[in-house]
């Protein structure tokens, strides 16, 4: 019989790879040999939760190989302790920090800046405080040509009022910081700035040409800025998100970014419906999310879907869509997984005809069509055909009770999946035995 002592160090390494950070640290006290091996294969991904607040998933690393996926989070009560963790693992490749408040974050940031040299993925999300230029300066020494992803996420944007004469709070980092970030990271592929910053087009014009994903849901770029940012970079960019865009910006994006897979602009200000036809240039588009100010784009949508056959997610808000386009969506874009159409106007032209057609989409996961003129029966039929459907918003739909029953059944038989249902109901849903993986919103 073999004993563990006879196993070679290489074999032990392979076994230890499966352990989480916490388990590895505990195993170090088994014997000297184990301690030596464990210290050699130090963990390279860590997720640190300081205090706890609601998780933000919208900018989860989208790396296809999940090589930055943290196996477990270390929940820590203070930043001093977190700094010790970082000093223990200087070879970290990826760091995620989830923190409630940025006050007293300095020890953690200095630890990262002083010891880490291998970082490829850095992600910070917080609720309170400002990520100032000084804080950025502590962090920056850790970044170098290895750095690929920088994700900055403020989980709630707050409107702060200061009476005149009071001490102004420090302002968040701006163009100087972002410029030095770009200089240090010539291979940056992903930049997410979702939160209050002082970054503007002036800083973003130094964007390294390696950039592929550019998500800026809180920075307004004017015509000049967008020209500067896209100069030289447009062809590589695969994902872009902007808070708003006018016709010029939209035209620049659609004409120059030919490799675009994801386009998100919640406020697109264009006057003529035909302008959206620019989207037909984007043959690789998988995720389209735009908001238009009340335009009817039924005919244009048909042409767009005919060109962008790879579409997986279609999110349209405040624009008029009817059965005319939606009832043939399954033929034009058979890969559609998510359809969200928010149109609260009276003349919503989506009826049971579309619902019946959409039930041909085998991969449909989410369907949000509030205020459509549909019946509960067609929705139940859809539910029985689309087995992957787990998010449904049919506010304003009749015969809600049958839908609730159908989705409760589905949630019960699929306990590992979360379900979400929004609709209007006028009877106590609470009394129906609702499984914990289902949440129901409505009046």
């Amino acid at each position, binding site marked *: 019989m*073999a004993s*563990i*002592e006879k196993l070679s160090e290489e074999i032990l390494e392979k076994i230890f790879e499966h352990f989480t950070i916490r388990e590895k640290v*505990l*195993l170090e006290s*088994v*014997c*000297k040999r184990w301690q030596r091996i464990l210290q050699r294969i130090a963990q390279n991904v860590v997720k640190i939760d300081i205090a706890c607040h609601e998780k933000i998933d919208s900018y989860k690393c989208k790396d296809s190989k999940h090589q930055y996926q943290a196996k477990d989070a270390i929940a820590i009560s203070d930043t001093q*302790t977190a700094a010790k963790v970082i000093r223990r693992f200087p070879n970290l490749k990826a760091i995620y920090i989830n923190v409630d408040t940025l006050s007293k974050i300095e020890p953690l940031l200095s630890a990262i800046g002083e010891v880490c040299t291998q970082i490829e993925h850095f992600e910070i999300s917080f609720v309170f405080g400002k990520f100032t230029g000084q804080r950025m300066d502590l962090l920056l020494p850790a970044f170098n040509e290895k750095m690929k992803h920088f994700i900055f996420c403020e989980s709630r944007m707050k409107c702060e009022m200061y009476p005149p004469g009071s001490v102004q709070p420090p302002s968040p980092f701006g163009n100087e910081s972002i410029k030095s970030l770009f200089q240090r990271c010539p291979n940056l592929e992903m930049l997410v700035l979702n939160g209050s910053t002082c970054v503007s087009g002036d800083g973003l014009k130094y964007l390294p040409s390696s950039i592929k994903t550019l998500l800026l849901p809180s920075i307004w770029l004017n015509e000049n800025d967008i020209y500067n940012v896209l100069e030289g970079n447009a062809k590589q960019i695969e994902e872009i998100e902007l808070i708003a865009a006018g016709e010029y910006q939209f035209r620049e994006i659609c004409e120059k970014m030919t490799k675009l897979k994801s386009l998100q602009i919640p406020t697109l200000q264009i006057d003529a419906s035909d302008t959206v036809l620019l989207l037909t240039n984007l043959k690789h588009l998988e995720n389209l999310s735009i908001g238009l100010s009340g335009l009817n784009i039924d005919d244009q949508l048909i042409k767009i879907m005919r060109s962008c056959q790879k579409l997986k997610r279609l999110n349209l808000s405040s624009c008029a869509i009817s059965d005319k386009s939606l009832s043939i969506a399954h033929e034009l874009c058979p890969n559609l997984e998510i359809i969200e159409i928010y149109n609260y106007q009276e003349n919503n032209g989506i009826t049971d005809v579309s619902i019946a057609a959409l039930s041909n989409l085998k991969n449909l996961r989410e369907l949000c069509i509030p205020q459509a003129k549909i019946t509960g029966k067609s929705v139940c039929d859809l539910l029985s055909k689309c087995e992957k459907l787990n998010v449904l918003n049919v506010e304003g739909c009749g015969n809600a009770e049958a839908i609730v029953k159908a989705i409760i059944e589905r949630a019960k038989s699929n306990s590992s999946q979360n379900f979400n249902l929004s609709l209007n109901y006028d009877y106590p849903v609470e009394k129906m035995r609702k499984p914990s993986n289902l949440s129901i919103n409505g009046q």
Partner: protein
Amino acid sequence: MSAIKFETSDGFTIQVERETAVVSKVVKNFLEYHPTDKCTFHLNCVDNATLRKVVEWMRHHKDDAYIETESDESDEERSQDVSIEMDPWDANFLNEDLFFLLDILNAANFMKIKVLFKNCCKKIYLMSKGKSSVEIKRLLKERCDFTDEDLQRIANKYEWMARVN
């Protein structure tokens, strides 16, 4: 019909069909360079009981496409596969006591049967998951060569561990 023989460390000989034997990368590579119908491999660190178990695994998986395509990935790629999922048949097959598992692990390593090797690692991980270092020491009968002072020093170094939840 061609057959490959394995000779174990305790002097037994097991005859195996060629299709099964080539699940082992060592055998496969050897036969590629020395085409022959008959040959004997001396496995001087694998005993009879272990080899029978390993051969049973090879027979079950000989037609699986992924065994064949499993190439020599770079270290980087390999280290990414840290999921603990495995084929249910394997999970059941490897329900053995720890020391026998270590034998199988050693054999799989020696005979270069990567999937079996990986799955043994996962199984050993699952067996020791959630146990304290003292329990693991007991489980693996590993000798502790730390002095009490050493242990205290390690405990101090990782006092943050106790404070995290």
